[in-house]
């Protein structure tokens, strides 16, 4: 603008000296600039295209104390317990970021929804015990003023695990541990089994363990919605977006042994909106990785696993998505209301669904037959070849059944030892994990949420000690294996 004015003055001087017409002089330049300014003003008026103060309500806030990556049941549980255990109310700002607000591929909604205490690891048993208590008293935990109470449709029908000769000793051991922790499980011989459940064919069964209390199945979607409703009432922000980047800063520090390590801190989380390049950097103090099957990718964004293999820097988060199929069939002669969630010696499982002789079931494939987790397409041949024969053998009534539908979901499968990862990462100091539960995440979600919230707020696990499930076990090679994987 100033240049235009100077040109104009210079131009006037030239005209005064009697020069001929200028070509490409300042005057057309000046009007061009004026029309540019006019266009800008016009577009700034309402209805124009250029809007400096545009609507950002779909973006997450610019600052949040805790960012929870992943809005499934584990993420929401962590958010709930953070809000519940914070000492002065309303202290922490929590943001839950989820990529898909329809939860179409989330493990929570696609889960079969069983809950059991029949694990071999004491921590798992304790987690499930608390979760059952949570589900039983869900309306005391998740009640919202003026909203109807939740009905999580908990069917306490128990789990029935069958063991062949080979596995009988392990099962007895497991039951001893479970009883020590306070689970109510009974061991049954094949005759007792036949007596109790006449529809079972006890051929090949040496021992069975049956959960008497606190086991069964429930509606995972109801739990998810209940948690979501409650934490919205507690003031947690929800945002739909994908985490694409963590802005970190590193510092080199020395351990007491003199070894130099690079510790990182996450300062900002870049949340990208759906179907656009727009992103919002959210400034945060803590990040909780509850991204389920995709936790491994989120961890890689933070630089976990980028280093020479065998070192702590190079230890990746070994969680990857594994596809599992669930089939829904109808069998008019099938077992009745007292049917527990039965897991056969071969690994096939089923449970009753509803009151019309409908059943849900499936089987975990072996390592060689792992389906490609790229999509959620169902392989019906898998049922025909791998699941049905075992089911039909175990429950003769299932020889004639009609598959009504099927779906596939992901396990956030921990390839190291199939148990969850909880707690902070040793090097990326403000990232906490709550993931990797490989199929039993839903049933332990309330308890895991509480454990992570305690770790964040108080620095240590207070109610259930999950220090054996910390990240460092991947580096130290200490497997915490669970022998009852369904």
């Amino acid at each position, binding site marked *: 603008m100033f240049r235009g004015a100077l040109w104009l003055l210079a131009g006037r001087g030239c005209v005064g000296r009697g020069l001929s017409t200028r070509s490409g002089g300042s005057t057309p330049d000046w009007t061009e600039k004026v029309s540019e300014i006019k266009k800008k003003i016009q577009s700034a008026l309402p209805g124009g295209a250029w809007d400096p103060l545009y609507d*950002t309500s779909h973006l997450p*806030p*610019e*600052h949040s*104390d*805790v960012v929870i990556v992943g809005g499934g049941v584990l993420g929401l549980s962590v958010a709930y317990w953070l809000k519940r255990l*914070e*000492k*002065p109310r*309303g*202290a*922490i*700002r929590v943001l839950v970021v989820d990529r898909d607000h329809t939860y179409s591929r989330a493990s929570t909604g696609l889960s079969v929804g069983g809950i059991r205490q029949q694990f071999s690891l004491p921590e798992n048993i304790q987690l499930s015990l608390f979760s059952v208590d949570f589900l039983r008293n869900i309306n005391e935990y998740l009640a919202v003023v003026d909203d109807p109470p939740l009905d999580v449709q908990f069917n306490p029908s128990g789990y029935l695990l069958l063991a062949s000769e080979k596995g009988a000793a392990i099962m007895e051991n497991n039951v001893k541990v479970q009883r020590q922790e306070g689970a109510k499980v009974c061991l049954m011989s094949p005759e007792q089994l036949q007596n109790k459940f006449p529809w079972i064919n006890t051929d090949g069964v040496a021992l069975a363990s049956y959960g008497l209390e606190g086991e069964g199945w429930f509606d995972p979607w109801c739990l998810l919605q209940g948690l979501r409703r409650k934490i919205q009432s507690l003031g947690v922000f929800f945002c739909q977006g994908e985490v694409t980047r963590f802005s970190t800063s590193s*510092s080199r*520090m020395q351990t007491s042994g003199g070894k130099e390590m690079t*510790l*990182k*801190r996450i*300062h*900002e989380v870049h949340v990208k909106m759906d179907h656009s390049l727009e992103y919002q950097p959210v*400034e*945060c*103090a*803590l990040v909780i990785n509850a991204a389920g099957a995709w936790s491994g990718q989120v961890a890689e964004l933070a630089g976990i696993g980028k280093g020479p293999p065998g070192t702590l820097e190079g230890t990746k988060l070994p969680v990857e998505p594994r596809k599992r199929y669930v089939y829904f069939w109808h069998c008019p002669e099938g077992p009745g209301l007292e049917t527990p969630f039965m897991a056969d010696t071969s690994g096939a499982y089923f449970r009753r669904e509803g009151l019309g002789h409908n059943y849900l079931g499936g089987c975990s494939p072996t390592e060689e037959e792992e389906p490609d987790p790229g999509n959620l397409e169902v392989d019906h041949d898998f049922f025909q070849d791998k699941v049905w024969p075992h089911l039909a053998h175990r429950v003769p009534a299932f020889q004639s059944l009609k598959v009504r539908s099927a779906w596939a979901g992901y396990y956030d499968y921990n390839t190291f030892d199939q148990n969850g990862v909880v707690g*902070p990462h040793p090097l990326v*100091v*403000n990232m*906490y994990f709550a993931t990797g539960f490989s199929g039993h995440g839903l049933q332990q979600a309330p308890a895991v949420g509480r454990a992570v919230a305690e*770790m*964040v*707020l*108080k*620095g240590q696990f207070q109610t259930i000690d999950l220090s054996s499930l910390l990240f460092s076990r991947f580096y130290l090679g200490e497997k915490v294996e669970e022998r009852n994987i369904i």
Partner: protein
Amino acid sequence: MLKIIIPTIMLIPLTWLSKSNMMWINSTIYSLMISMVCLPLMNQPCDNSLNLSMLFFSDSLSTPLLMLTTWLLPLMIIASQYHMTKEPLARKKLYITMMILLQIFLIMTFSATELIMFYILFEATLVPTLIIITRWGGQTERLNAGIYFLFYTLAGSLPLLVALTYTQTTLGSLNMLLTQYLTERLTHVWGDSLLWLAFMLAFMVKMPLYGLHLWLPKAHVEAPIAGSMVLAAILLKLGGYGMLRITMMLNPTVNFMAYPFMMLSMWGMVMTSSICLRQTDLKSLIAYSSVSHMALVIMAILIQSPWSFMGATALMIAHGLTSSLLFCLANSNYERTHSRTMILVRGLQMILPLMAAWWLLASLTNLALPPSINLIGELFVTVSMFSWSNFSIILLGINITITALYTLYMLIMTQRGKYTYHIHNIKPSYTRENTLMLLHLTPLLLLMINPKIILGTMY
């Protein structure tokens, strides 16, 4: 006075023409030198004021405030260095320019002779502050904060403009030195009461008085560190200074008009202290504690006794330094963990012990530990309030207790206890930060030796 104002104006070309690596250093060092130049003003030869020109004067009330203002600019510049690192160079220079501009207006305000000039500059200080808050603040709420700040103060000061022009036309002059000797006194009629209200409202909003204090927590929390520092340390004192000057000419209406504001201040002081106990956001806690301390100053000014004026002046200086120090400490936390919530950042004493020492000293001065100048201020105010009304001691005692409670709460939450896991790799304290804290504490502690220079006109 020009020997202070001209160099401060020249700081602006200094900033714009400095090389990028010398910009911060230049502005800090030269503004420190300007504050040294201010020191000779402390040599007040007589009970009256030092009349430097037709426009500017300084007396024992405005000099400590002037010293505080000039001392604070280098501190603001030091404090802003970290969070401005990512900005482009021109914007950094603009930020420093805003601070310098604010400084110029403040220096002229505190040394103004004519009340209209005081008013104009009083309003002018709003603009750079607003720009600092809304442009460089941290979160989206800063727009709301800026609007609250601007409109509360503007709306409060418009009646002041009317009152000042009316007084100018009736009286003939608004020279502060002359109005002290006013013989026409105000009466108890409605018109004069409204005139009194018009005069005082602007400063009440600025202090802030309890019922009009909504802008303060917002503005302090959303402002960047330099904005918070200057708001807490100086801008609040503008209100106090204005009230001290204007009450000279408003007798004796003050005696009965003061009652509602005394009530509000006394109640507000206890209320805001109690709110501090429940705050989760560190900056918000410090902001509310500012309201509480300033309520004491308002009460002291309204009862108009020599002891209370001394206490008010001492409290203003002491609180300015303490509050600014606390904001700097809170900012050093925020820069490391990006969170202002107290429960997420605990047990810092283990990790940053020197910073813990500064926190301790800041907290001790905030709760008016003897023999700090905060205590002198509070004690003088308390004693004079007791002689004004015996029952006020109850509320004042409760306030002093609650102040101690929330200050210790803040200290223990942030420093003591087991540290939270995720802070164990925060960067250690920079020398710059330690310098900043030391530069705050040094005047605060040194003034303990000779507090009479901050006791104002009544000493």
